């Protein structure tokens, strides 16, 4: 484990204080997050580990503004997101956050180019700028030859690289990855991990990654554990 | 035999998507109902529901030019009059044709308007009366609700008898058995001997010109026309005539449809020889036709109904395309299920068959439901468009054709989606 986090400025990228998230199904309440408090600095690579059902995905969903929360405070890049409108939240997701999912979550009807294009369209970027960005990102990830292929025509590793390209094309400040290697063979998984590490090191992108794999988690600057909705920082003990 | 198994699976699949299944049925049923409405119109005009008439019925067409009628009527609602013009003869010609004594049955007929009321009632609007001979009713198989036609003896004796059409009997006698009762026609008393059952055919064989119009309400002996001075409805002039009724009877104006029954070849030959003498020798061009030839040669011309049947069939095809889209959407949800079936050994054809069975069931339901739409449509039509007193109704033939068309189109709509869905690769993975 390493704590060599580049200090990219005063304002943390992600600050959560006493965050609580409860799921309600009829009379049953499930506390998915219980009083979660964490600060993630700019440029930090954070790994979050925990058993199934511990609240990892909920944590990532809340962090990525995909889901709301019931109590507490959450500041993203210094901005309190609690009372923001749906419109504003969408804009924040689009401009500041990139997502990588375990199941890739590519849109099956769109080819590689159009998949990477989706977030850029919602940003209102001009067509020429969009095309340039997409081609640049795909070239960086070695996907130019597959530009017009559909997701169904790609291997798992290639699909995940497309998902990463989609996440990176908009030059976000925060990358959230939910088990990015979960559906990949070991070689592809290692390649993806190398890629993420390189992105963090070379571009200083803040990465929060949920993983089961200790080997991959070791490549992060810091590890957090989550158990029954509670965040545990081993370094804090 | 896997058919019952496939059927069971098909029913289960339909129940799993009740919203989608209902939508498909509704879409097809509405379109089929619309198609059935046009079909009902077409069938009652061109096919009719009249009982099968003997092919031994004959007519003589006097060949002449109808330039004015063709110029004016072709392509219009009056097109049936073109047929009528070829089926009618003048009074002198009728007398010549009727004088042979050869046919086993014969009748002249034309329609005129008369005042007909119960004794003591004030005059109401003129009614359509058909002047016929006794043989008319048997030749055209008119069903009787009460009583019977008058006889040849009544004709010969000039008996003042009448047969009422069903609607007139309803108006004058509240639908009761009026046989033996008296009505007054143009001030003269007539005794009711029979009442026709039901409405007359929409396009009656004996007079195509009244297709789509009001029915004959009253039947009177042919000879009464002279006593009543009954002027035929819509006479077709073939030369100017004088103003008196006697002038009409002597003129070339065509008014009378003359029908004969020649049930044997010998009789037909004899009548043909008679015509050659009576007409051919005078340079009159004519054609003797039996009912089959008559229907072929003098069929009703095409009308807007032909167009509407085609248009509404397009509507049904459009509904099939809508159903196809919905079947495609349904196919998306069952990719996994069908792939698993393939994985455990089901041939592709069996999956296609199952989906076609689903479509067949839905189409059958739609075909039956279409009758409700058609009945409602006929009800609305009868209320809005009072062009005739013969109501538009759903007939067994219209139902059969509509049902078949719905089945064919509804099932064909599922062909491509079924093929698409069955083309999935076999897999045991969740899709």
């Amino acid at each position: 484990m390493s704590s060599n986090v580049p200090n990219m400025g005063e304002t943390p990228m992600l600050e959560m204080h006493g965050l609580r998230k409860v799921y309600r199904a009829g009379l049953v309440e499930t506390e998915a997050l219980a009083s979660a408090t964490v600060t993630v600095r700019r440029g930090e690579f954070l790994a979050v580990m925990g058993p199934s059902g511990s609240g990892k995905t909920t944590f990532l969903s809340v962090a990525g503004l995909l889901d709301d929360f019931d109590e507490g405070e959450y500041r993203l890049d210094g901005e309190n997101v609690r009372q923001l409108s749906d419109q504003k939240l969408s804009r924040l997701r689009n401009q500041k956050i990139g997502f990588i999912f375990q199941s890739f979550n590519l849109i099956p009807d769109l080819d590689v180019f159009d998949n990477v294009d989706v977030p850029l369209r919602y940003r209102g970027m001009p067509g020429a700028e969009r095309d340039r960005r997409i081609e640049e990102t795909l070239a960086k990830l070695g996907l130019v030859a597959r530009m017009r292929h559909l997701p169904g025509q790609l291997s798992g590793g290639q699909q995940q690289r497309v998902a990463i390209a989609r996440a990176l094309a908009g030059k976000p400040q925060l990358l959230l990855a939910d088990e990015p290697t979960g559906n990949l063979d070991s070689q592809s998984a290692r390649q993806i991990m190398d890629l993420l590490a390189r992105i963090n090191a070379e571009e200083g992108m803040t990465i929060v990654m949920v993983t089961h794999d200790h080997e991959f988690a070791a490549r992060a600057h810091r590890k957090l554990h989550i158990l029954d909705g509670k965040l545990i920082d081993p370094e804090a003990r | 035999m896997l058919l019952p198994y496939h059927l069971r699976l098909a029913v289960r699949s339909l129940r799993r998507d009740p919203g989608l299944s209902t939508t498909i049925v509704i879409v097809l049923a509405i379109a089929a109902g619309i198609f059935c409405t046009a079909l009902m119109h077409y069938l009652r005009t061109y096919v009719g529901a009249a009982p099968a008439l003997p092919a031994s019925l004959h007519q003589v067409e006097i060949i002449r030019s109808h330039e004015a009628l063709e110029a004016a009527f072709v392509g219009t609602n009056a097109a049936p009059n073109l047929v009528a013009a070829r089926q009618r003869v003048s009074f002198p010609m009728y007398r010549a044709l009727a004088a042979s004594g050869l046919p086993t049955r014969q009748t002249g007929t034309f329609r005129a308007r008369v005042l007909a009321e119960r004794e003591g009632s004030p005059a109401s609007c003129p009614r359509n009366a058909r002047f016929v001979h006794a043989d008319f009713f048997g030749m055209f198989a008119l069903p009787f609700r009460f009583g019977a036609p008058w006889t040849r003896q009544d004709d010969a004796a000039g008996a003042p008898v009448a047969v009422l059409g069903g609607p007139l009997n309803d108006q004058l006698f509240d639908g009761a058995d009026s046989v033996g009762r008296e009505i007054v026609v143009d001030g003269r008393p007539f005794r009711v001997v029979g009442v026709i059952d039901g409405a007359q055919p929409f396009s009656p064989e004996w007079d195509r010109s009244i297709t789509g119009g009001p029915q004959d309400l009253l039947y009177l002996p042919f000879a009464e026309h002279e006593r009543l001075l009954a002027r035929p409805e819509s006479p077709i002039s073939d030369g100017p005539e004088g103003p008196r009724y006697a002038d009409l009877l002597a003129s070339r104006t065509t008014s009378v449809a003359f029908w004969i029954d020649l049930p044997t070849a010998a009789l037909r030959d004899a009548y043909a020889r008679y015509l050659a003498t009576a007409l051919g020798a005078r340079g009159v061009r004519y054609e003797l036709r039996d009912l089959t030839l008559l229907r072929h040669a003098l069929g009703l011309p095409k009308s807007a109904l032909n167009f509407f049947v085609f248009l509404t069939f397009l509507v049904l095809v459009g509904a099939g395309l809508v159903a196809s889209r919905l079947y495609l959407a349904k196919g998306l949800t069952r990719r996994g299920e069908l792939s698993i079936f393939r994985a455990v050994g089901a041939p592709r054809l069996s999956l296609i068959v199952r989906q076609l069975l689903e479509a067949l069931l839905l189409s059958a339901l739609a075909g039956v439901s279409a009758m409700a739409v058609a009945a409602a449509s006929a009800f609305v039509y009868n209320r809005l468009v009072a062009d005739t007193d013969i109501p538009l109704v759903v007939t067994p033939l219209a139902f059969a054709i509509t049902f078949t068309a719905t089945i064919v189109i509804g099932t064909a709509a599922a062909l491509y989606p079924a093929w698409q869905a069955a083309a999935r690769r076999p897999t045991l993975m969740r899709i």
Partner: protein
Amino acid sequence: MRLDAGPVLRTLRRQPAVFTMLVLEIAAGVATLTALLLSASWYGLIGAQHSSFDEENLLLVSSYTPGGDEAALVASQRADLARLRAIPGVEAASSVSLSILDARWIYPALFKSPDSKRRAVGWPAFTDDAAPRTLGLHAIAGTLPPDAGGDDGGAAREAYMTICLAKALFGSPANAIGRFVESDQNVPVRVRAVVQNATMRIPFMPHAGCVLFIAGGAPVGHEAQVYVRTAPGARDTVQTRVRDAFAGEARRRWIDVRSLDTTDSQHVRVGHGLAAFLSIIGALVGVNAQLGALAATSFLVAQRRRQIGIRRALGATKADIVAYFLVESGFTMLAGSLLGLGGTVLLFLMMRPFFQGLAVDVGAIAAGLVLFWSATIAATLVPALSAARVPPSVASRSL
């Protein structure tokens, strides 16, 4: 709201069979709906058609007089004419064989002149010398017969014709004066005047403007039609007076007095009825098409729930999601409408032989398109709005 048309178009192009089916579906809907509206508008025009006569000041008195004595019938009808002309408010009355509005078919004649080789189809009207005044006819050429006002019918073997007949037979109105015209319905008659074209409300008929008015009296039979010209504004009053004048004969004869209001004519009622009925059918066709669109789009929304969540996760607003579905629907709607309009043209060509004088009613077609598009947008909007409510958290949930 941002419209990603390019990716949508590429997606549609990748599914040519589905795209083709969608386009055909919309084309069929557009073509059948516009054809129905065209036919409805044609029937509606029939219903709205007026004759060229001064209908506001005209009454039609129809009668049926029973009896087997022709001389008595002639006397009765002459007496009727005299009685009508004597009623205060009646400016003229004329017996005319041709009906301006009637549900029964009347037959045209093929007119020809011994003096020219031309022939023309038109409508003979047997009438009397009071007809020009009664019907408001004006001489374009020649002179109309003096208004005899009597009951002799006027000079036999004289006639006056409308301009269209005069041109068809003799080339011009002036050339027709003094010439003879005959047909299968009338002996040769001498043309003494040419009058303005008379458009009658014959149901669904062409050539309903070329008339030969033949003096000498209308044929006598049980039925008679007398047109009565009333003083301006006095029509309703005169109508009552006429009914009162003949009230005593109601038991023996049938007498009907009516104005020429459009609603009073059977073929007008039929025309309006058919227009309404076809419009209802058109509406059903439109609703049916949208029912399928609504169901299919709802299904797609359910199918694409995860994709919608992903798009929301990537920054799409609710409006973007709605726009996404509208754009997809819009492409097929545009392509389908264009093809459908082509279908409308074909259907129009098929209709023309059966719908006399059918013209392209741009209004009806435009109305059909607007209705169809509005309904399609509404049918797409409802599930699209539902799609917009899919939360972005759907993207993060495992399968």
